[in-house]
C-alpha cells in the first residue's frame, strides 16, 4: 500500500480541487486552453527534472512509488505531478477570479442604487 503513496497524494489533490470547476467558467470545460497552458510548462519542467535526477540533485524513494518509469528515468507519478499541480492551480485561480467578478458586479449594483 505504501507504494501507492505518491499517486494517492496526487489523486487527493484532484479530488479536493474538483468542486472548484463549478465556480465560474471552469477549467475542465476548456480542454484546449488547459492543454495550451500546461504542456509547454510541463515539458520544460520534465527536462529540468530529468537532468536533476541524472545529476543526483534529488531522487525518489522506491518505497512510495509504483516503480514504473517514464523517459528520463522519471517515475510516472512525477510526470503526472506536472499535470495535476497545474490543474489545481488553474482551478483555484479560475474560482477566485470568478468570485471576485461576482463581488465586483454586486458592489457596482449597490453603488448605482
Amino acid at each position, binding site marked *: 500500500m505504501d507504494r501507492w503513496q505518491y499517486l494517492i497524494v496526487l489523486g487527493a489533490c484532484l479530488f479536493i480541487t474538483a468542486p472548484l470547476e463549478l465556480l465560474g467558467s471552469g477549467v475542465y470545460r476548456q480542454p484546449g486552453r488547459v492543454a495550451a497552458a*500546461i504542456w509547454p*510548462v510541463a515539458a520544460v519542467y520534465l527536462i529540468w527534472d530529468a537532468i536533476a535526477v541524472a545529476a*543526483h540533485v*534529488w531522487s525518489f524513494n522506491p518505497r512510495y512509488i509504483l516503480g514504473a518509469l517514464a523517459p528520463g528515468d522519471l517515475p510516472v507519478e512525477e510526470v503526472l505531478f506536472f499535470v495535476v499541480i*497545474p490543474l489545481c492551480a488553474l482551478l483555484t*485561480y479560475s474560482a*477566485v477570479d470568478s468570485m471576485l467578478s461576482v463581488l465586483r458586479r454586486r458592489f457596482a449594483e449597490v453603488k448605482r442604487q
Partner: protein
Amino acid sequence: MSGLGYTAPAALAVFAVCALEFGILRTGLFRRPAYWISMVIVIGFQILVDGWLTKLTAPIVIYDDRQTIGVRFPFDIPLEDFLFGFALVTAVLLLWERRRHRPEVSEQ
C-alpha cells in the same frame, strides 16, 4: 556537480517567468488581485502536499543537501521548492491568461 544544483535553477526559473511576462507576454497577470489571492491559497496547500512529499521521517522525494542552501522549513520543505512551485504555477497561469477571452475590454 558541486553545490546549489537546485538553488541556481530554481532562482533562474523565477527570473525566467518574470522575464516571460514583462518581456514577452504582458498579460497583466501580476496586476490581478485574483492572482495574488490564488498564490496565497496555492502556497498554503503546497505546504501540506510538499510537506508530505519531503518530510525527512518518510520522504517521497529525497534531496542531496549539498545541492541546496540547506534551509528546510516548514515540514522539511527545501526553500528552493517554493521558487520551483511559484515559477511552475505562475508560468501556467500566464499561458492561461494569454488565451483569456475578453468580452469586456479590461483596463490595461
